[in-house]
């Protein structure tokens, strides 16, 4: 099986769908001729033509708004927002329009579209290239929100997202584009070719939206993670030596509560980790669901390890980024009593 980076896997997914389905179109800022600032669409315009892959003006609400028009007409746009930090101008179109179409028109108009965007920090991008806005989308009924952590899932989930009958927010942890990241920026970079999850089948396959992946079986406690934090969790376990179960959520909305519940019922302890700011972050929703579903099994308070409630700093990036040390401390805390 060929080994791919997450960038190549995403590109391959779009290539597959462009080839299979004439209603698929790809557009966004710098995605056409150039192929995207992260190169995710490189070569796709040359291969499929300008009518299928093109550049847009710098206006995220226009990207979303035109995509909605196309999707309600019957096409399947898959658009890119250059950084998740720049999705806010499109927030109205995505949450009040794309998310509402099917419901408000009672099925007359539907909105099968995908909005891809690089998310998360760890690249010294400062407060406007590092944000994790997932919770702003999981609060919106009518949207689905997914976030892969491997090239294999990235391709499979993106194909599933493009084929989904409803709008999907597709968050790409940019720190994982070229390899897994275990939270130590001074350690030698690992490439996907050195990781099993870098093996990506050619052609069409999909990973179902709404199913979590148990990345590691364990009995001491359950770690709920997604994106870059999955690898931070692995690193934290190295330090703590605990036998934790690591669940990679992959899909935040809909959420695979069944998998989470059976794990926490088994371990009785739970730690939630994400990069986004804590207050009203997606971790809050996870804690709320777990404490309700597993209350009688919980043996210690559910811990949240998150980005601090402050803008993502440039210089102090590694004091902000929830790394293995901070997570390990929370794991220890969760094991108390």
């Amino acid at each position, binding site marked *: 099986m060929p080994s791919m980076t997450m960038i190549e896997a995403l590109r391959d997914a779009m290539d597959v769908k462009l080839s299979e389905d004439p*209603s698929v*179109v790809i557009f966004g800022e710098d995605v056409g001729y150039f192929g995207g600032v992260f190169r995710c669409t490189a070569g796709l315009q040359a291969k499929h033509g300008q*009518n299928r892959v093109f550049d*847009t*003006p710098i*206006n995220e*609400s*226009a990207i979303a*708004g*035109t*995509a*909605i*028009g*196309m999707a*309600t*007409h*019957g*096409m399947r746009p898959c658009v890119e927002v250059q950084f998740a930090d720049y999705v806010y*101008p499109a927030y*109205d*179109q995505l949450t*009040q*329009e794309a998310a*509402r*179409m*099917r*419901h*408000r*028109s*009672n*099925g*007359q*108009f*539907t909105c099968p579209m995908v909005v891809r965007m690089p998310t998360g920090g760890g690249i010294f991008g400062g407060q406007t290239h590092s944000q994790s806005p997932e919770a702003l989308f999981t609060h919106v*009924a*009518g949207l*689905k929100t997914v976030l892969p952590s491997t090239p294999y899932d990235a391709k499979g989930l993106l194909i599933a997202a493009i084929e989904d*009958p*409803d709008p999907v927010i597709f968050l790409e942890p940019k720190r994982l584009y070229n390899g897994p990241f275990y939270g130590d920026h001074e350690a030698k970079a690992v490439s996907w070719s050195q990781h099993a999850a870098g093996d990506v089948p050619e052609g069409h396959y999909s990973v179902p939206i*709404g199913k979590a992946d148990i990345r590691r079986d364990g009995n001491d406690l359950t770690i709920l993670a997604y994106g870059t934090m999955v690898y931070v969790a692995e690193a934290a376990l190295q330090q703590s030596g605990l036998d934790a179960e690591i669940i990679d959520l992959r899909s935040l909305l*809909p*959420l695979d*509560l*069944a998998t989470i519940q059976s794990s926490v019922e088994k371990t009785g302890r739970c730690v939630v980790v994400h990069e986004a700011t804590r207050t009203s972050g997606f971790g809050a929703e996870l804690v709320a669901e777990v404490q309700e579903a597993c209350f009688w099994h919980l043996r210690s308070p559910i811990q949240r390890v998150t980005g601090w409630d402050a803008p993502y700093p440039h210089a102090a990036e590694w004091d902000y980024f929830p790394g293995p040390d901070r997570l390990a401390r929370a794991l220890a805390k969760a094991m108390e009593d």
Partner: protein
Amino acid sequence: MSKAPKLTFPQPPARPNESPDFSEIDTGVAGEIGVPPFDIQARDSRVYANGLIRVMDHDGKAVGPWVELIADQDASALRQGLRDMMKMRAIDRRMLNAQRQGKTSFYLQCTGEEAIGCGFQRQLEKGDMNFPTYRQQTLLVAADYPLESLLGQLYSNTYDPMQGKQLPVLHSSRDHGFFTISGNLGTQYVQAVGWAMANALTGDGKIAAGWIGDGATASNDFHSALLCASVYEPPVVLNIVNNQWAISTYTGVASGKSRTYAARARGYGIPALRVDGNDYLAVAAVSRWAIRRAREGYGPVAVEWFTYRAAAHSTSDDPSAYRPKDEAKAWPLGDPIERLKDHLIGKGEWSEERHVQADAELLAEVTTVQKTVEEAGTFVNPKPMSPSLIFDGVYAEMPEHLRRQRQEMGV
């Protein structure tokens, strides 16, 4: 003469207890502005964007070069246009009443603006798509949308194709080329451009029409729409309905120092025209020109329909608080129904008697349907549908957490 910077605050010509004053409005002369070629460029459309295209003169005669574009619109076609407008007004009359009686939670009229949607719709083909605002019910009426569905939506009962999901007047009918209306202003204007891009990409031969009010031209999506139309040149007609008011806010607060809304669109490199929206013949002719032009691949065009919102903004509004009571009567371009009526009478194709009779017939038609529909439930006397409908259509397939919530609801 240097002066200290001061802010300007645009003011309407008259406020309550002042007498209406439209002396600043230059209505031009009917027939004076020509028909531009299909391949006209924005830069050459100044006279069309800053002037006012009119076809009917003061005696209701059709004059000027636009007339031949609607040469095929014989008397029966025009009578149909008149009936469309009269039917719309009959519906407004009945439904305003129904709301006053508490039978619906909300209503909104389009009095004085009937010519625009009615005249435009009759020039569209099946498969073309309008992205309307809440004030273009005229598009549905002139598309022969079943009255049961139209009224059903207003009563949120089983006749409502949307099963009571949406506020009254936020209709949707894909089959009638009427896109689902959002309560959020502006959002659909750029969606219309996206739809038109799909028209071009799929080559389906259809076009899209965006609709926006003068106040909502201030919204970001107005800009996005004009921008994308200018960049990609899809087959879209971008309609701007300038009825002088946005709830209590004078149109000057949206136009600023722009000469016209058409002129603003022209700045985006899109050919633009300004038209007397109370002149059914002008509406029909310009609509036909714009729609054909888009369909034949000449790209987007913006049309400012110049009119006046004669009624209150909605049943939640009382305009006497911010404008002279009799301002509507003073509107220099008159009433669209009266004007088309006079035109037809002048041609010997209509009469006061037939008009009165038609009015009665239409009111009767509406009233009959209204009775039937009301039996399925009104706001004072609702016949609730299953509450679980709330969860239908949030997604194509209901996810687990919605199933759990539906159970929790206990239905």
